[in-house]
């Protein structure tokens, strides 16, 4: 295979899009871990439901991308709220293993209910953009990818502003940094935790909706993505949001490059191999954690 600059650039651009979508998922996980110190195993299913919501909303909306995206995000935020009130709010922060088993159970229930009702057949999601793309010289990127990357960047910008400059976000960071001190100054952990879960669910719904025109939509799509998101959260340092974003974009790029030259098995193995190497060198993750950092 001849390696041309164009081919490399194409791989790089695809990798960035992929990485930004990974980052959306990983950030949600980090957010929930930072505030509640639990790992949400059902996070991939939030994403899958987002993709399904998009797949159902698009035909209703006459294939218009933006309204369908909005509907999906709101739907997944509501789902997140229900999950929080029903299950997560009953967990205490020190019950790590229990939180995993509960959310694992939830993930099993959601996957198989979706498969039962909507079958496991992969769905191809069509949008107003179809399969058209932008062409810059010899490089071609579909609009759906461009929009997905743009939406992800916008979401990070929004998240940064929220966490940095609003009372809502400050409360979240306060809880992540020091739970007792936050309690003392009158921050209610329950409200903050609920906000964090809903926010993370929204990001995940966004990722799922944005990914659905790019990948095939199946009930199992969340499981394969969440596995990478977990690796990213470990590489970046648990609870560290910028760390997770950097790790996610880097992984997207590495995967895309590996995928361009080697077989698919290596592409899938990359996340795990990198994670093990990082743990050897820096057991705390690449970017050391100190409370929840946003910048």
């Amino acid at each position: 295979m001849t390696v041309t600059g164009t081919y490399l650039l194409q791989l790089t651009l695809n990798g960035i899009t992929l990485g930004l979508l990974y980052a959306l998922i990983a950030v949600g996980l980090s957010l929930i871990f930072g505030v509640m110190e639990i790992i949400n195993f059902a996070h991939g299913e939030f994403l899958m439901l987002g993709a399904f919501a998009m797949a159902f909303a698009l035909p209703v909306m006459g294939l218009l991308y933006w309204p369908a995206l909005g509907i999906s995000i709101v739907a997944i935020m509501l789902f997140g709220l229900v999950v929080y009130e029903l299950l997560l709010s009953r967990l205490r922060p020190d019950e790590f293993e229990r939180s995993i088993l509960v959310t694992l159970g939830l993930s099993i229930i959601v996957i198989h209910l979706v498969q039962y009702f909507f079958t496991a057949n992969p769905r191809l999601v069509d949008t107003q953009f179809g399969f058209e793309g932008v062409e810059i010289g010899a490089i071609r990127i579909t609009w759906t990818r461009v929009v997905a990357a743009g939406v992800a960047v916008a979401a990070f910008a929004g998240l940064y502003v929220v966490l940095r400059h609003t009372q809502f976000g400050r409360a979240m960071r306060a809880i992540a940094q020091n739970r007792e001190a936050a309690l003392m100054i009158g921050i209610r952990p329950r409200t903050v935790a609920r906000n964090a879960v809903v926010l993370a669910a929204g990001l995940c719904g966004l990722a799922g909706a944005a990914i659905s025109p790019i990948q095939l939509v199946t009930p199992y799509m969340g499981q394969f993505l969440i596995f990478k998101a977990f690796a990213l959260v470990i590489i970046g340092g648990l609870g560290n949001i910028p760390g997770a974003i950097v790790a996610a974009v880097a992984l997207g790029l590495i995967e895309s490059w590996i995928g361009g030259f080697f077989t698919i098995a290596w592409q899938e193995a990359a996340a795990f191999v990198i994670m093990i190497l990082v743990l050897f060198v820096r057991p705390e993750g690449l970017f050391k954690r100190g409370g929840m950092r946003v910048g």
Partner: protein
Amino acid sequence: MKLAAALVAALAFAALPFLTSSNYILGIGVSALIFTVAAAALNLIYGYTGLLSFAQLGFWGIGGYASALTVVTFGGTFWMGVLYAALINAAVALVVGYPTLRTNRHAFVIVTLTFALLVTLIARDWVELTRGPMGIPNLPAPSAFGHRFANTSDFYWIAWAFSVAMLALLYALCSSRIGRTLIAIKQNEPLVRAQGISPMPYKLASFAISAAITGAAGGVFVFHLGIVDPLILDFYYMQTFLIIVIIGGAGSFWGVVASGVALSALPEVLRFSPDFRMVIYGVILVAAMFVMPSGIAGWLRERQVARLREALQ
């Protein structure tokens, strides 16, 4: 007392082929015996040492492939295959376990989960070795001393002997000083360090032993199925082991063994549709975590303690 009861139960299980000739029931018996071993191995790492390991699924699959490949590709015997399955898994567990156990228990859970998913991907995508999604069908029946264990009732003996041997091994380990050290690590690791015990070798050893036993169980199980393909790494197996351990009571040896035998029959009772069955599994898992977090054994122990307290007053 408990040992005597266990001995009676083991002999009762040995009598099963004399009571029935139904391959269906004997097949469930084989699954029950092997699942109980795998669940008891999970109990060693999760219930005793307090490390929730999802890597068990990966070890189970690696064991299945190792024993099948030993026989089919490399021309060894079934017995060598099971032995290799155990040894390979112990080695893999040491390699994965060493960097992972240096981190906190949060990272351990996630790394073991990614490991299990990675094994699934390798089983599917490394077609030259594993033959990909097609799998390796028609595994030959094991034989020893000129006797071929061709039908289910013969194979039942292998499963029985294997599971009795492995459970005895695990029991010896769990009730020894090592087992008590593991429980101490779970309950209070800083205190264990203060007593001059380094937790790392204990954790690593329990991870490796649990991996080896799970792998050997997987190696035996694929010969019961007669085929190994990426479905051996279906998350269903991990859920089954987890539910057995949680319902039985993590950290209780006999609780897990009893629930292993009882719950292996459950999937057979719940044969509506595979999806619906998994939904029920999920509901059981969530409900158990809220209603009975320490399992039946834990619930019994709590009641016993409550009765003692009443008697004291």
